[in-house]
């Protein structure tokens, strides 16, 4: 019996729950309660403060990893086996079609959610001090998500994949000096071929996911360290809001006069660490607004997870991922289109290769990264940052309009064709 108890002990690594030490260790030694604070403000949990978009993005990533690993068991990154494996998934692998659908819709969903999450963070001003760098990490995660989606796009090795990647990598080759070389490095040749398939596969299943996991850890850790999830601080009582805005500046002694040490209540290391906390703390006045993370935050997150999973499953049950004919380098579809999230870029490229394909996207990414450093206005109240919101809204609107135009309004030869005009497929 001792052995069993010892094994159990070695797994849970805490004293029995009957003791006070065991009860506290249940919290202290718990991974989840370290990613979460022990207690959270009720406001953090309100749906309309965050729409849980960050969580949903992460859950979609979890679905993608799970289904992706399962799909790897059936996939060979070779031509034409890759395409045949797609067909086998569709026709003979048990749940194969369902898995592929889930993977595909989650991937699109993740691109959408990561973008919406970014918008939410901007509109609530959550990138402001001390979270500037976390915003930059987020921009990198956004780019990695696009990279993952783009590399995955080639793997089915059908016409859709082949030409989308051909067009997508062509856009990249417009970059001066290094564009051509970068494209060659990515494709392992001058055009999309078998070596490109293998390279995209390696990027898709090893390199990019590792990078995403690492950066996600940093991203979460910084959220936790910078005061938890976002909440509309500007709605707090005036004096509290002012205090919170200035809090979080290490070394700025006068700013931390909000609460006395007696009223201060932090969790975890409070008996060990002396001195003043450098992040948001829970004041006695706010005590009533605070709930334990377990079960309140946990259950809400679990609900978000299950909602995400069920939505993706329901979609996958009724809506199949596209699979066109086998990739044929000799037969160019007209128009050949990049994946939808790059169609804004392709639209720009159709007007000017250098400006649209290189300058504009580079500026966009740089501008996004620079946002928290240029926007030095400390207030997060929407009324105080009208211009920031206007500029960002225009940026979002331009992107969406360009993507819609590229997706629905471009016909053969990249001519402007409204989607409701049916082009009778004429023979060549």
């Amino acid at each position, binding site marked *: 019996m001792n052995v069993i108890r010892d094994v159990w002990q070695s797994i849970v690594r805490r004293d029995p729950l009957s003791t006070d030490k065991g009860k506290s260790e249940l919290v202290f030694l718990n991974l989840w309660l370290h990613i979460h604070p022990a207690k959270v403000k009720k406001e953090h949990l309100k749906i309309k403060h965050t729409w849980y978009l960050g969580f949903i993005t992460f859950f979609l990533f979890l679905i993608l990893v799970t289904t992706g690993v399962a799909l790897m068991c059936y996939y060979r990154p070779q031509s034409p086996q890759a395409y045949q494996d797609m067909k086998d998934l569709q026709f003979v692998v048990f*749940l194969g*079609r369902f898995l592929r659908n889930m993977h595909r819709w989650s991937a699109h969903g993740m691109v959408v959610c990561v973008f919406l999450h970014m918008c939410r963070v901007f509109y609530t001003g959550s990138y402001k001090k001390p979270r500037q760098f976390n915003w930059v990490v987020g921009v990198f995660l956004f780019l990695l998500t696009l990279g993952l989606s783009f590399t995955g796009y080639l793997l089915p090795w059908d016409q859709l994949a082949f030409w989308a990647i051909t067009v997508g990598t062509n856009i990249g080759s417009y970059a001066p000096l290094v564009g051509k070389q970068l494209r060659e490095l990515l494709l392992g040749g001058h055009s999309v071929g078998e070596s490109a398939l293998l390279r995209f596969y390696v990027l898709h299943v090893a390199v990019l996911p590792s990078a995403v996991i690492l950066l996600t850890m940093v991203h979460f850790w910084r959220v936790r360290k910078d005061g938890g999830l976002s909440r509309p601080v500007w709605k707090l009582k005036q004096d509290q809001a002012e205090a919170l805005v200035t809090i979080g500046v290490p070394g700025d002694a006068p700013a931390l006069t909000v609460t006395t040490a007696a009223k201060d209540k932090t969790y975890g290391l409070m008996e060990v660490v002396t001195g003043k906390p450098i992040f948001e703390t829970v004041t006695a006045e706010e005590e009533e607004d605070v709930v334990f993370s377990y079960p309140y935050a946990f259950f809400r997150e679990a609900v978000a997870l299950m909602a995400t999973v069920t939505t993706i499953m329901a979609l*996958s049950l009724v809506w199949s991922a596209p699979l066109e004919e086998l990739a044929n380098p000799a037969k160019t579809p007209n128009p050949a289109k990049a994946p939808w999230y790059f169609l804004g870029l392709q639209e720009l490229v159709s007007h000017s290769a250098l400006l649209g394909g290189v300058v504009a996207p580079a500026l966009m990414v740089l501008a996004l990264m620079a946002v928290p450093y240029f926007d030095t206005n400390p207030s997060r109240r929407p009324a105080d940052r009208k211009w920031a919101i206007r500029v960002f809204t225009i940026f979002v609107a331009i992107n969406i309009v360009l993507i819609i135009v590229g997706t629905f309004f471009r016909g053969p030869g990249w001519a402007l064709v409204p989607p409701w005009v049916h082009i009778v497929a004429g023979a*060549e």
Partner: protein
Amino acid sequence: MERRTPQVFFVLSLLALVLILAAAWQANTPYWKVYQRDFHKLEAQGEPNSLTKAAVLASPPVIHQVLLTGLQRVDRCTTCHLGVEDPTMKNAPQPFRFHPGLGPHIPSKFGCTICHGGQGLATEKSDAHGNVMFWQTPLLAKDYIRASCGRCHKEGDVPGVPELTEGRHLFETQGCRGCHKLNGVGGSIGPDLTTEGASHRAPEWLERHFLTPNAVSAGSAMPNFHFTKEQARALTYYMLSLTSEDMGSYYSSVRLIPSAGHGRQLFIEKNCIACHNVGGVGAKTGPDLLGVTKRHSPGWLDEQLVNPSLVYPGSTMPVYDLETNARKALVNFMATATAEDAQAILSQRSKTLTPEDAAIEAGRQNFARFGCVGCHGLQLQGGVPNPNAQGGEVPSLLHASDDYTKDEVIAIIRNGKVPPTEDRSKPAPPLYMPSWRSVLTEEDINRVADYLWSLQKKKDSW
């Protein structure tokens, strides 16, 4: 809300469970399982032994597939079409009916899609029959199925499919290669036809296109050749048979019976009669082949065909590099060869030509083979409409030597020529003389010119 969170979580989890069960149910109940159950019932009907009957009825559902590794094809058709090789299923309802008249083309060796088209990988009817988006080769309609024979039988007459022979003949004589490339040879005015059989083009479309090119493809530069219905059908057959897949050599490598007929074809192709004779008919350089299979064992003959000088040191017989089944086929032919047959083979050989005649003949063949007649006409009369070119049609070549020197004509063939336009404001004429430099050798071009001049002489002598 807070109090209801666990309930919402519970409901959503239940929903997820239901969804995954639904997905599993969907994946686990494909229609081919129903077909297999019906087939087992059909099989069990006439079974007197109750034990066997129970075993048949209880056989587990499995996917049947024919792997054609050399062709990168997998045919799962027999998952539902379970009776194709079972003669007792002659009157069974589809999809179980026996496939009569297959000869050596057994589905378990040859697959199905090779002739019928469709999507062999699929296990659901609409997908498998290929009537779905993005599958290039839907099931061929009954009227056109025999066209598939030409995918393997690329040479000679195909028994039962005169259309193919006719189609090939028309293609080579009507000058199609002038505009269309086939296996790398031909012009580039029209689309390359090398893989036309796998292009998702409906047979009906092709047939109408041959009758009146403009009817189905507006603005097509293809002239109207005024084909008859039969000719259009024949050309359609030929088009459908064109694929780049090397089916013929794949199947001959897995061929079950190396037939004497195939051996005879090889005998003619390799020109064996130039050295050998059968019962005295033919050349005397090599030994008489009559009864050779009685004098030597098949193994000895096979070795002799692999490397003649190994058996007879100093033998002048060349190494022909034949594959196993081709050698077997030749041996089978030799076993049946007769003097009369050798006579027939000999008489088919074209008579010997003088070197000059040979050059002109070669030029004429080039002229037909590379498709010059497509535009310039079978009798070189020209006359194919070419809107907005001077004269409005492709020029006749009967008077080439009146208007040009031989060197000029050679230069035109070599470099091509854009016809002078009548009206600069209108679109350029659709037809032009392509450059043949990359297709024809200098020698070939000279021969074509010789041929044109030889015609001229004929006219003068009239």
